């Protein structure tokens, strides 16, 4: 007989799935936004990864980052294309940096974690493109202004994540 999962386990999985769907929706929404520059997005999908990290732990956050890039890319038609590889590298790098900052930097809040994740996301995208697709260091000329924008979006997303996590933990 197959053992039944407990109600709390099912509830936890349901919450994770709901957040995954939200992250996929944001991934698709961001792809539809007018381009603000090469590979630049507001990073709202990373906000969900950050929330999952705080609410459910590192494994759930990594799984969500992978899941939302795979399913999101499927919907926008870039699955297994270079765009998908770049997205995956950025999403995973952001999730890894979030976990490391969350565990290793005392006194950091969700804003600092989000800031570092946004910078890691952008850097990972450039490094991936430079190593796999366009092997030219000239690519990095465009990096500083984009990193500056990442600082702004990372900070704002972190503030939003703080607000949402405070509301969720109050209510859960």
């Amino acid at each position, binding site marked *: 007989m197959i053992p039944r999962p407990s109600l709390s386990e099912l509830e936890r999985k349901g919450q994770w799935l709901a957040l995954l769907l939200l992250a996929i929706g944001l991934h698709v929404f961001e792809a539809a936004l*007018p*381009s603000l*520059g*090469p590979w630049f997005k507001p990073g709202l999908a990373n906000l969900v990864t950050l929330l999952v990290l*705080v609410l459910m732990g590192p494994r759930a956050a990594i799984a969500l980052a992978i899941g939302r890039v795979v399913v999101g890319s499927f919907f926008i*038609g*870039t699955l297994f*294309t*270079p*765009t998908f590889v*770049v997205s995956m590298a950025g999403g995973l790098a952001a999730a890894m940096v979030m976990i490391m900052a*969350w565990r290793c*930097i*005392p*006194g*950091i*809040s*969700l*804003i*600092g974690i989000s*800031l*570092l994740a946004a*910078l890691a996301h952008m850097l990972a995208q450039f490094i991936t*493109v430079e190593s796999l*697709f*366009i*092997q*030219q260091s*000239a*690519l*990095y*000329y*465009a*990096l*500083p*202004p984009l*990193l*500056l924008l990442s*600082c702004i979006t990372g*900070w*704002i997303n*972190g*503030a939003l994540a*703080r*607000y949402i*996590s*405070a*509301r969720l*933990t109050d209510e859960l």
Partner: protein
Amino acid sequence: MALLTRESDHSMLMLLKGSKVDRLLLCVSLLAIVISWFVIQSRIAAGPAVAEIYHGQVLLATYPLPQPGEAAQRLHIEGELGTSEVLLDQEGVRIVSSPCTTQHCVQSGVHRHAGDMIACVPNRILITVRGKSASTYDAIVE
């Protein structure tokens, strides 16, 4: 952990403030970004404005950006997926058409300032602008 979950003040200003560690990280990041920006600009902003066109590891060509009065140039660049059409005119450089599905490179429009870049990752085409930007005006009179 307690810091992450024990959020009581919901006012937007307090939410945007961040902890001391956050602000320190922001300052260090901004400093590093600004320094690297100046270093890069000092290296690439010298000389006349040119567009460099790459495919993967190969620099295909370097073209001067046309000055006011000079004729526009239309180039056909072979990439991974097919031919990208590049237009060099007085406004700068742009990709007019591309065989990629995302079309981000086409939508990114005209670029003419040192450090500007158009990257078509699916077609593995990179166009960068170096040198002093030429004015978009013939003359400014009062």
